């Protein structure tokens, strides 16, 4: 352990290693290159060891094996992380900007009196300073922030680092919890998943997502026709679901579904970080928006600056015509 190490909180969901964990690992490798320290991945829970292979590009993997950590609960997680971070004394702790990460990181910072930065997209080491670019105001503004204190706790937006195929020979250390864990004042009772019956947008290869730019409920039908012409389904950003134009099951983003289709067509979606979090790992993203500064263009591979309604019908016709030829 050294004061130049980079600690990564590996996250799992429903038995599998979450994608964000590999992104954080890639980010940590870059940072450790700058600090000259090691990358230490932390896996919490009795099943932690089975994910160690996927994280072998780390230098060390700490598996904290305790039944209290089997499902996420903020108090046991915090108690363990507080102890691990204090004893490891790393330069930075990378945590995903996810439901779990957002629960844990601020409180961890408060316990350790450590700086916490939300919405981190880029992190660079310059001597004793970390230079972090973080997205604020719904992703419209980027703030360059300098952090000197150690450890810095960085909440990293999904999609900020590209996972690498790199493997290594990480040393795996399975340890009992360094602190005695007992159920906290908050107890988990039950998980409710959304109603079945509607299409599952997380399983679609093609999604056409509509946002505020669609303007009228009457325009939804044309967008759905386009989605079907493309062999996909209609999805939406939060404002559309809030207006009851589509069911919650169609909502993409942090408070909706995380999707990863082969093709994501964003029509009039501004692309706040919460939305990007749900779709930025799509294979191909095309964004159509009248606002050239819309953050959606930041993650899009193709961008069109125009009113989506001028595109939807001609595009549907062109695709149907093309299908007719084939």
């Amino acid at each position, binding site marked *: 352990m050294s004061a130049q190490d980079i600690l990564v909180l590996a996250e799992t969901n429903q038995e599998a290693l979450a994608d964000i964990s590999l992104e954080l690992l890639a980010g940590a490798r870059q940072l450790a290159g700058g600090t000259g320290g090691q990358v230490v991945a932390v896996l919490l829970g009795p099943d932690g060891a089975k994910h160690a292979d996927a994280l072998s590009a780390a230098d060390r993997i700490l598996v904290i094996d305790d039944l209290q950590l089997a499902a996420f609960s903020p108090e046991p997680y915090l108690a363990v992380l507080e102890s691990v971070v204090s004893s490891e004394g790393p330069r930075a702790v990378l945590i995903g900007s*996810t*439901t779990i990460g957002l629960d844990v990181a*601020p*409180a961890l*910072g*408060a*316990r350790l009196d*450590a700086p*916490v*930065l*939300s*919405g981190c997209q880029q992190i660079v080491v310059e001597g004793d300073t970390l*230079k972090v670019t973080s997205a*604020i*105001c*719904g*992703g*419209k*503004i*980027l*703030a*360059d*922030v*300098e952090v*000197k*204190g150690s450890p810095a706790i960085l909440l990293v937006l999904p999609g900020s680092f590209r996972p690498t195929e790199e493997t290594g020979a990480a040393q795996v250390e399975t340890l009992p919890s360094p602190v005695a864990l007992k159920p*906290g*004042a*908050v*107890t*988990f*009772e039950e*998980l*409710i*998943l*959304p109603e079945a019956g509607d299409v599952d947008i997380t399983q679609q290869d093609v999604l056409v997502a509509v946002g505020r730019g669609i303007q009228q409920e009457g325009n939804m039908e044309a967008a759905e026709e386009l989605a079907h012409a*493309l062999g996909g389904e209609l999805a939406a950003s939060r404002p559309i679901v*809030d207006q009851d134009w589509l069911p919650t099951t169609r909502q993409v983003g942090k*408070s*909706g*579904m*995380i999707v990863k289709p*082969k*093709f994501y067509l964003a029509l009039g979606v501004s692309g706040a*970080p919460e939305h990007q979090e749900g779709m930025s790992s799509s*294979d191909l993203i095309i964004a159509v928006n009248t606002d050239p*500064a819309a*953050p959606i*263009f*930041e993650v*899009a*591979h*193709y*961008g*069109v600056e125009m009113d989506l309604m001028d*595109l939807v019908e001609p*595009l549907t016709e*062109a*695709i149907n015509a*093309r299908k007719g030829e084939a």
Partner: protein
Amino acid sequence: MPYASIVCVKQVPDTANITVEAMKEDGTVNRAALPAIFNPEDLHALETALSLRDEHGGTVTVVTMGPPKAAEVLRECLYRGADRAILLTDGRAAASDTLATSYILSRAVKTIGRYDFVFCGRQAIDGDTAQVGPQCAEKLGIPQVTYLEQVIDLCDGVVRIRRNVGHGWEIVEARLPVLLTVVETANQPRPPAARRVMRMKRAPIEQWDLDDIGADLSRCGLAGSPTKVHRIQAIVLTKEGHTEIPPTEEGARQMIHELVVDRTL
């Protein structure tokens, strides 16, 4: 059984149409350049506290930290039904980051005294950090539950809550006192009541400074803030391989052609 609730609220610049010109060099928002509004999720936090009081009895105290103008959101809380409002204003608290802010708010909550619930909005639309609520819970030494969408049940000092965790909902139980952060799908905030507006429009609002809450000055403002904003910039398009498609029929045809060639369709 009556419950005492404290709601932390914030007046924020309306960032819906923010541009880089509205930001100051130190990374704070030039409040003069944008209209000031009630942070949206804080209204849902207030409504949650008010409906609990309506059902179980008790009190709702609101507190905000900010310049004197921030008293506007407190008055709005009174119009909507809050029992007591406290403005925490002190030049020495300027430039506080999330750690310093949560320390100051926790001192204010302790000064208010007995409480069963502390409510906060999940996050403020200016910083998007979602840190202050959870950090305040830590400073108070009480448990926290984030993303509250519904209070299902409350009895014998235990609250049963539905929280929105993105891919679904979790039902959790927490012992009081507890800090809860509320999301905007939680409820429909009640509007200001006309009769309360008439009664409260000139009602004095309690004003406290850092000395009143016994704050340690080394933990407030710039001195208590380990993060320093260095530079602010508008979002720039940096994605590699970004292609602009001309908004013409030819452009659309070209795009479809490329998608077919790439076997996307």
